[in-house]
């Protein structure tokens, strides 16, 4: 029998439950997060038009760079202001 040492961080990933999906967007504030990839803004502009046509409130956000995780303050701001968020990954 071979016994070896665990090369991993031995951390069982914390099980973060997904937020409940809303039945409808009516009356909700939708956050649009641009991760700063080229042309992601164009995609989000179009989404914003469509959401506003439906009478929804929209808040726009932008990550400083797509190569790094969103700053904690930005994440907090989005969570405070919005009920749902749409993130654009584009090129």
């Amino acid at each position, binding site marked *: *029998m*071979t*016994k*070896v*040492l*665990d*090369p*991993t*961080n*031995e*951390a069982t*990933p914390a099980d973060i439950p997904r937020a409940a999906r809303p039945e409808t967007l009516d009356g909700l504030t939708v956050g649009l997060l641009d991760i*700063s990839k080229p042309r992601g803004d164009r995609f989000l502009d179009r989404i914003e038009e469509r959401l506003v046509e439906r009478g929804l409130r929209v808040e726009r956000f932008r990550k*400083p*760079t797509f*190569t*790094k*995780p969103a700053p904690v303050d930005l994440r907090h701001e989005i969570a405070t202001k919005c009920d749902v968020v749409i993130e654009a990954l584009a090129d």
Partner: protein
Amino acid sequence: MSLNESPPLPEGLVAVVKKDCPTCELIIPVLIGLGKETQLTVFTQDDPDFPAGIDDRQFDEELAFSWHHNIETVPTLLAVEEGKEVSRTVGWSRSNWESLTKTPGLGRDLPDQRPGCGSLSVDPSISPDLELRFGGSSITARRVEFAALEDTHEALFDRGWTDGLPVVPPTEARVAAMLKGTTRSPEEVVASIPPDLAPCTVEKVAINAVMAGCRPEYLPVVLAGVAAVCTQTFNMHGLLATTMPHAPVLIVNGPIAEQIGMNSGNNVLGQGNRANSTIGRAVQLVIRNVGGGRPGEVDRAAFGSPGKVGFCFAERENDSPWPPISTMYGFPAGTNTVLAFPGEAPRNLVDQLSRDPDSLARTYAANLISIQHPKLILGFDAILAVAPDHSRVFRESGWSREQLAERINELTVRPGHELVRGAGNIPEGIPEGVEDSYLPKFRENGLHIVHCGGAAGLFSAIIGGWVNGEMGSDPVCVEITP
């Protein structure tokens, strides 16, 4: 008595011997003589009946006595008073033995001196096991047992712990031996490893270094490499997550490169050298296993590159026309350092006809312009690896590294109207508004000129960089400490 307790020392004289040692055979008459005159205990390592004619003989079969009392050579003779060692001599030296035993005229028929042999307790094939058995283990990592019918190598693949190549099973004995390669404490945290930002100890690095195939003396280089890439500046998280193919390229400078047998010459960027092949791999395995960075998960590279298994080499310092590349980062020549550069696969560059520095610089510039895209400038650094057949030209003409970099930069300057989006009927390019400017390919200090490669071949090589600066990665150079 527990295995971790040191066996008591008998009073008087204590000799440690093994039969498989000609010097021990030689001194049997001396031991027999001393045994008659004084209180002598002989510990024998390999044969309970050796040496014949000694009354007080103990078989150190488990080598506990030898290990706990740091016996490195046989024969070793100790003088013990009140349970404490007061003096010791190793091998056979008549004068030393006479002085230690306070007995004149020892071994008149023997030569004056003979060196001893290695103690079994320091035999490299068994000393790691003794270390574990008698020294107690300070290793805290979770032990994982494979079933008797499980193939160890298959089991390591099945758990997702390899990069697709076999790994050396990280047994406790191997990891304990690896940890001897550094003076740092196993529990010391080296870095937080992305993407999981998991704290990584020296011990976890050692486990992955064993798996990668490293020898213990490589460990300080691996530790420095891990520390270099897991900095905000280097941004390993972004480098891992990008769709681009880049990965850490580690360049080692200083005397340690030669001491641990690294390659800076023939086939420098290729296979065949254990240190080059395994140090970079160990860093990558740390990112995979400790950080959780796996292809198809957070690693989103469209192509990747062969260098993502591990990419590490040494600069060819001994006949370089330039000081070590680490001096660009403020380290004095002769310092042991690792430079981490976010690089892609190397590309060869041929110029077999130029014999003057300016024409070589033109060849370099013409090729370097194409990194990522000829119309994308200032956003990507590069390594220019210059082999001896090319570097000779710069040495003979007295061109410094800075002078060469400056000339290459001048030669890459192009008008903005050729570079902007849409120019040349290519939408890719830099944003409009710089049409009237003249711009170089590289930012200041973006070009890293490194001396390496085999002695024959009128070539250089290019390793293109990833996005530089705040939104990407900047190279990081750190000192290697023991």
